[in-house]
């Protein structure tokens, strides 16, 4: 075996070792063909061409995996946003729920205050104060934590709409 053929085999074996999994079958195929090439120099040129082909294939595999990763990252980002909106809605509902529960508890613990007979206390504790807090939170969080703010705002609007319908029905 002449020196050019030895060099060709060495080159292809090195590429085979370094090639990504997806390119290995092709690199092996090119290496196997080396035994059937007539002429040592032809074998060396075959190896040069094969190395180029494997590098191009490996580069395209890398590009594809990069594209896949970018897509996954985008999907993750969408997931994070949805989580933020959900959390915002949950916080807002918890606030309204706590306000309502707090009012009921106060009415039970301190019947002397007569909160059950004062509808303005309900409007103040369950509507005005929580809605003010929610709108303020939305404004403050809008720039830094947009999805959370959007969740809070959406819940605030739903609660407000619910009360408006409730009032209209009365």
């Amino acid at each position, binding site marked *: 075996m002449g020196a050019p053929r030895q060099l060709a085999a060495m080159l292809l074996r090195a590429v085979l070792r370094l090639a990504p999994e997806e390119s290995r*079958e*092709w690199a*092996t*195929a*090119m290496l*196997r*063909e080396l*035994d*059937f*090439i007539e002429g040592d120099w032809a074998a060396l*040129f*075959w*190896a*040069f*061409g*094969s190395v*180029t*082909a*494997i590098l*191009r*294939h490996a580069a395209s595999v890398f590009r594809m995996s990069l594209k896949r990763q970018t897509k996954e990252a985008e999907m993750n980002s969408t997931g994070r946003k949805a989580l933020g909106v959900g959390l915002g809605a949950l916080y807002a509902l918890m606030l309204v729920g706590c306000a309502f529960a707090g009012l009921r508890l106060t009415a039970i613990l301190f019947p002397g205050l007569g909160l059950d007979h004062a509808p303005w206390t309900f409007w103040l504790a369950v509507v005005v104060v929580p809605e003010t807090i929610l709108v303020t939170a939305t404004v403050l969080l809008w720039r830094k934590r947009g999805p959370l703010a959007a969740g809070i705002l959406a819940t605030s609007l739903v609660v407000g709409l619910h009360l408006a319908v409730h009032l209209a029905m009365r």
Partner: protein
Amino acid sequence: MKLRMSPQTVLILDAFLEQPEDWKYGYDLSRITGLKSGTLYPILMRLAERKLLETQWETGEPGKPPRHMYRFTPEGLRFARTNLLERAGGGLGQVALGLVEC
């Protein structure tokens, strides 16, 4: 199915169409088409990725390393015939590719 029909791709499809049912080796294809391995293999890879070519390792004599072989899939054969027909241009191409009995 999008595949750039470069003159080199046409040469390779043409080589496979000679005897579509036969398996072919990389080096033989290189000799038939006159393409260097750096041009031949990327095209073979693309054709295989698009399922136009099937690949197989030759199970030859024991002790001899197996060789990679290629041939058209049914889809690949259809693709090659259709595309080469379009390039050959109509009836004459059909005769040339053996699709129409003379």
